[in-house]
């Protein structure tokens, strides 16, 4: 009996440790598909549309990487993960890239052994309450029942915030955003807390979004970014520079509409030419074709296009660029130069 249990444990561990450490780029190319970990469904960030096609801001990163590496933005196998399963999925090699609005923290980087390839959304944790509750500040939430996704940084921030402010609360742990929505709408919890962007996205799917308000307090820094495993720097570089390519493209005015033309008839801006592969050969330096960045941009547009299309002010989610504007416009989005 003992032995059986131990064997079982080792099998689990063996599988979990899995193929980590192998050259991910070769694996992806051999497979012909990028395995990308996303949420189980958060409209605007990653959710299947009516045709079963995954769309969203995080999905856009997956598609851009697939286009850069494989030349085909559709060559992505989306793996839905919960807050709890995402890290195991990445550590075990089940996914090559995790683009699941995950907060960049010290312990995730150092202790969990993941490499964050950048920040694609600067966020903070907020609170959503029904208007009928008559609450206007998070400081008034003493004694409230709070729906919280388990296995997230928000769970820890929540504990800290209430302790700091000497308030009590009743946590209702839930697994997915959909579950939270059900409990929150039924009134089984007074407050739903997660990243402010996630709250806005969730509220947009409610029948009466106007009946719910986001409280003004943002209680944490949540720099969200895609991540890969430690130990494969080349793969990390590819992902990081794909994200940077999308950001640079917006800065340089390269869009999905004009990228093909700009590549066909190179202009006189050397940085654009290097980005699009018409000058120098940046792609070859990490084993990709020279038009990798062009493919990534054509997949779903540059950073700004992805933002506007999925979560921007003209979508039901209606997020302003805010901190996520380009550095030239007073935001924090900034890419190192392509040189």
């Amino acid at each position, binding site marked *: 009996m003992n032995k059986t249990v131990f064997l079982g444990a080792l099998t689990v561990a*063996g599988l979990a*440790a899995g193929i980590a450490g192998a050259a991910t780029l070769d694996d992806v190319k051999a497979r012909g598909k990028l395995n990308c970990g996303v949420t189980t469904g958060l409209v605007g960030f990653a959710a299947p549309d009516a045709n079963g096609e995954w769309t969203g801001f995080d999905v856009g990163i997956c598609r851009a990487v697939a286009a850069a590496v494989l030349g085909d933005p559709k060559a992505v196998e989306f793996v839905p993960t919960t807050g709890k399963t995402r890290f195991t999925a990445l550590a075990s090699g089940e996914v090559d890239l995790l683009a699941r609005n995950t907060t960049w923290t010290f312990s995730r980087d150092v202790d969990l052994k993941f490499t964050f390839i950048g920040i694609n959304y600067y966020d903070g944790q907020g609170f959503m309450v029904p208007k009928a509750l008559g609450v206007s500040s998070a400081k008034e939430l003493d004694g409230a029942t709070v729906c919280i996704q388990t296995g997230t940084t928000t769970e820890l921030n929540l504990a800290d915030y209430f302790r700091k402010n000497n308030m009590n609360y009743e946590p209702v742990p839930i697994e997915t955003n959909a579950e939270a929505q059900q409990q929150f709408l039924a*009134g089984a919890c007074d407050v739903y807390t997660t990243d402010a962007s996630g709250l806005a996205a969730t509220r947009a799917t409610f029948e009466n979004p106007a009946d719910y308000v986001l409280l003004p307090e943002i209680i944490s820094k949540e720099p969200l970014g895609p991540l890969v495993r430690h130990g494969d720097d080349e793969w990390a570089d590819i992902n990081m520079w794909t994200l940077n390519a999308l950001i640079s493209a917006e800065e340089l005015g390269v869009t999905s509409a004009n990228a093909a033309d700009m590549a066909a008839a190179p202009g006189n801006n050397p940085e654009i030419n290097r980005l699009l592969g018409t000058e120098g050969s940046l792609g070859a330096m990490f084993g990709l074709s020279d038009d990798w960045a062009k493919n990534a941009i054509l997949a779903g547009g540059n950073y700004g296009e992805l933002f506007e299309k999925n979560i921007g002010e003209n979508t039901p989610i209606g997020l302003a660029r805010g901190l996520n504007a380009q550095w030239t416009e007073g935001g924090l989005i900034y890419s190192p130069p392509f040189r």
Partner: protein
Amino acid sequence: MTTFTDPPAESFKLSMLVYDTRYRSITFQILALVAVLLLFGWLTMNTAQNLNDLGKEPSFGFLGESAGYDINQRLIDYSSQSTHLRAAFVGLLNTLLVAAMGCATATVIGVIVGVLRLSGNWLVARLMTVYVEIFRNVPVLMWIVLCMAILIEAMPAPSAFRGDNPDATMKLFDTIAITNRGVYIPEPLFSRSLGNLHIGTAFDISINLLAILFVLGVSLWIARDITRRANAKQEATGLRPRTWHTRLAVIVLPTAILLAFLGFHLGYPELKGFNFAGGTYMRNSLIALWLALSLYTAAFIAEIVRAGILAISTGQTEAAAALGLRGNRIMSLVVLPQAMRVIIPPLISQYLNLTKNSSLAIAVGYMDITGTLMGITLNQTGRELETVLLGMLVYLTISLIISGVMNWYNNRVKLVER
């Protein structure tokens, strides 16, 4: 003259390992053992190698770090500053709580349904058949989720109790509040406390509780003694003295006096702020899990009880009837005691199943050991191997203890054979 020669001394040939039936079974067993050990060794090596490559040497140091997360249902003191070990302990107690509640309820429902399924009343027997077939043929996870959904959607939110003309009111003379967050029932309170007993630095146990348990235990022991004397007298004289009133007094009076001394009273729930405050709060997650596990397991127990009863030949029942015993006496004195030895071994498995099934708690956000140690702690610390191994060890220990206790009970009730 006789010429006996010894049979030629058997020379051992290697081929005999396969072709000689005396050795063959041993050969294959050894081969199988070697294969298992090799597989085992390979898995260990592979795991160690992979973990090493990831730079994650197994270590249990994380258990001493502060957990950082809150747990809603805690039977012992816990805050987000407590350690991961304590969080695991809170989870363990929650597992034990729902397992104990589930086993008790499932047994009661199971025995009643099992007996009723054999009822002569066609309608009752068929209704019980429907119950058994429905519950044991749908996965328990569905029942858990369904119970939770019903509790959340059908019950009123605490805000419905508010205002001058509320949509919902408390039940049973304003003592019980049923909301979609759980049920608030009156809690026992004492105005005089005897203090706490400290076990180590980590655990406190209320002396009030210990005193009550002690008095109750002594009372029960005395009551048993009275029964034994009554039995002896019945054996000797054929007359059974009337004892129920003395037994009742022995059990109830000392405890009642102690409770009065401690200033026992009930604390009632009342609406305060966002939620009800006061009273004992049974969360939705606990109720849903408890109900679903009990109803599901009870369906199996009902079948076990039915099988046990059917295993007793009808001759026994008829003989008992011929002696003039009434139906319920036949059941309790003749049939059930004999059926018990058939019932208990499979019952053990059902208790074990229920306990292990309680790990589905995460589906409704009940913070059991799977939710704390193998859920949040695993996720926040990234120690998959360690937490899962620990978790399995915990379930193994619980299961072995249940088996041990039930086997001990089985040995007591089983037929004494010579």
